[in-house]
C-alpha cells in the first residue's frame, strides 16, 4: 500500500514540520514495507530492530547543530514515509562518523541506513549540486580532488616528490576505465547535468 497520497503531499514542503491541515492517521497495522525492503537491499539490513531509544540522535554531532534527526528518519522509514525521507535536505548532514552505529543497542547500523536512503534519494533525482560536481570530477580526472593547477604541482616539487603522482593524474587510461565503469552502471547518466525544467 502506498501511503504517499495520505500524507497530503508534504514532501515538497518537508522543512515545514507542522501545518494547519491535520495529517491523516497512518495505519501501522498495514505497514508499507516496500521502502524498508529497498533500504535493506542497499545496505541497512537491521533497520527493523529499532525500538526508538534515541541513542543515535543523542550521539550525533550533526544533530547537535542541524535539524538532522537520525532517530526520526528511521521511524519515518519504518512507517513507509519514503518521500519525506528522501526529499529532506537534512539527510545530507550526516558526516558518516558511525558514532550512532557504534552505540546502537539494537545493532541497527543507522549510518548504513542513512547511506541507503541517500542511494534511493539520488536514484529519484534528489541530489545536491556540489555533490553532483564532485562525482563529475571523478569521471573527468579520476579524482574527486584533482591535480588541477600548476600550483599544486609546484607544491609537490617543493616537498621533494615528483610533480605528477603515479595515480590517475598520470595515467589517462585509468580515467578511461572509470568512465567505462560509470557507463556500465549508469552512473554517468545519474550525475550528468540535467536540462533545466
Amino acid at each position, binding site marked *: 500500500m502506498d501511503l504517499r497520497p495520505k500524507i497530503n503531499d508534504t514532501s515538497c514542503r518537508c522543512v515545514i514540520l507542522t501545518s494547519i491541515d491535520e495529517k491523516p492517521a497512518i495505519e501501522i497495522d498495514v505497514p508499507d514495507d516496500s521502502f524498508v525492503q529497498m533500504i535493506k537491499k*542497499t*545496505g541497512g539490513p537491521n533497520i527493523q530492530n529499532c525500538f526508538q531509544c534515541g541513542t543515535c540522535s543523542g550521539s550525533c*554531532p*550533526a544533530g547537535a*547543530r542541524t535539524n538532522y534527526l537520525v532517530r526520526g528518519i528511521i521511524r519515518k522509514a519504518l512507517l513507509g514515509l519514503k518521500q519525506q525521507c528522501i526529499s529532506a535536505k537534512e539527510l*545530507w*548532514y*550526516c*558526516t*558518516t*562518523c*558511525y*558514532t550512532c*552505529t*557504534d552505540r546502537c543497542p539494537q*545493532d541497527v547500523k543507522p*549510518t548504513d541506513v542513512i*547511506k*541507503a536512503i*541517500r*542511494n534511493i534519494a*539520488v536514484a529519484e533525482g534528489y*541530489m*545536491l549540486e*556540489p*555533490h553532483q560536481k*564532485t*562525482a563529475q570530477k*571523478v569521471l573527468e580526472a*579520476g*579524482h*574527486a*580532488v*584533482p591535480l588541477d593547477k600548476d600550483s*599544486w604541482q609546484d*607544491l*609537490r616539487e*617543493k*616537498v*621533494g*616528490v615528483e610533480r605528477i*603522482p*603515479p*595515480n*590517475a*593524474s*598520470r*595515467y589517462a*587510461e*585509468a580515467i578511461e*576505465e*572509470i568512465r*567505462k*565503469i*560509470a557507463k*556500465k*552502471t549508469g*552512473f554517468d547518466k*545519474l*550525475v550528468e547535468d540535467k536540462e533545466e525544467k
Partner: protein
Amino acid sequence: MAKKKSFYHFLGCIIPHRYPSVEKAAKLVFNDLGIDLLDMDGATCCPAPGVFGSFDRVTWATIAARNLTIAEAGGHPIVTGCNGCFASLWDANYELKHDHELRDKVNENLAEIGREFKGTIEVWHYVDALYQLAGLEKIRDQVTRPFTGVRMALHPGCHWMRPKIIKQKDDSERPHIFRELCETSGAEYVPYKDELICCGAGGAVRTADVKIALEFTKQKFDSLIAAGGADMIITPCPFCELQLDAGQVEIQKYFEQEYKFDILHVVELLALAFGHEPDEFGLATHLQYMQRKSEPAWENLGIKVGEH
C-alpha cells in the same frame, strides 16, 4: 629472517594533490622502519566514500574494487594514510568478501574493463602498519628528536576504527592505539572532551555545507582550549588535516574567530621525531601556512630551524 614487507602505497586525492608533505613524510618514515612502499600505478580516487557511497553503492564498490585489483595483480597488500580512502578500500574489500550478490554485480561491471575482484589482499592504514607491523618498540628506537614537553592533542578521526564491530580494531569509545603510537614521539598527550567527535568534513558534508562542517571543527577547538590548549594536533587522515588546518582560515572568514593550531599528520610527527628536518618533507607547505603566509610555531614544537 622474515622477508621485508612491501605495501602498495595508495595515495588517494588529498595527500598527493593538496598535502604532499604527508606523502613525503610517509616515505621517510616507512623507509626508516624498513617497510617498502610501492607505487600503485593507475590508482584512481578511492572513490570518495561520502559522495560515491551515498550516490550509488554498486558504482562505489566497483571503482574501489578496480583499485583493489591493481594490488591483487601485484600480490601485495595496500596501505593508505587517509581515513576516507581506508573507508572506501577497506570497507569495499570487506563487503565484497562477504556479500556475494554485490560481488557478482561488481565483477560483472569490472569485466567491462577486463578486471576481476578476487579478494586476495588486505587493506591497511598507516596506523595499522606502524602499530602492528613495525611495532612501538621499533618506532621508539628510531626517535632521535623526542618532543619532550610539547603538548599534543589528538584527532583520531572516524573511519580507521569505526564501525568498531566490523573493523575489530580498537574500542572507538576509549581508543588507545592511535594515542600509543603518537606517544612514541615523546610528546605529552592532552585529553579533551571532544577528542573523538568527527572533524565535520566527512560524509559529503564539507562539500554540501562548509559552514556546518566548520562548526564541528570549531567545537573541537573550543573543547581543546577549555582543556588548557595544546601545541599541536595530530591526526591520521589528510581530509581531517585539511579540515583542521585550512579550516582555521575558513573559520576566521565565517565566524571571525582566530585559532592557531599546528596540525600534523601522524607520519609528519614521526618524521620529525625520527630526526628529519621539516624542510625534508615540506611541513611548512600546509595550506594554513600558505594561505596565511605564516609558518609553524617552531618554538612551541621544540624545533630549531636554522635558516628561519
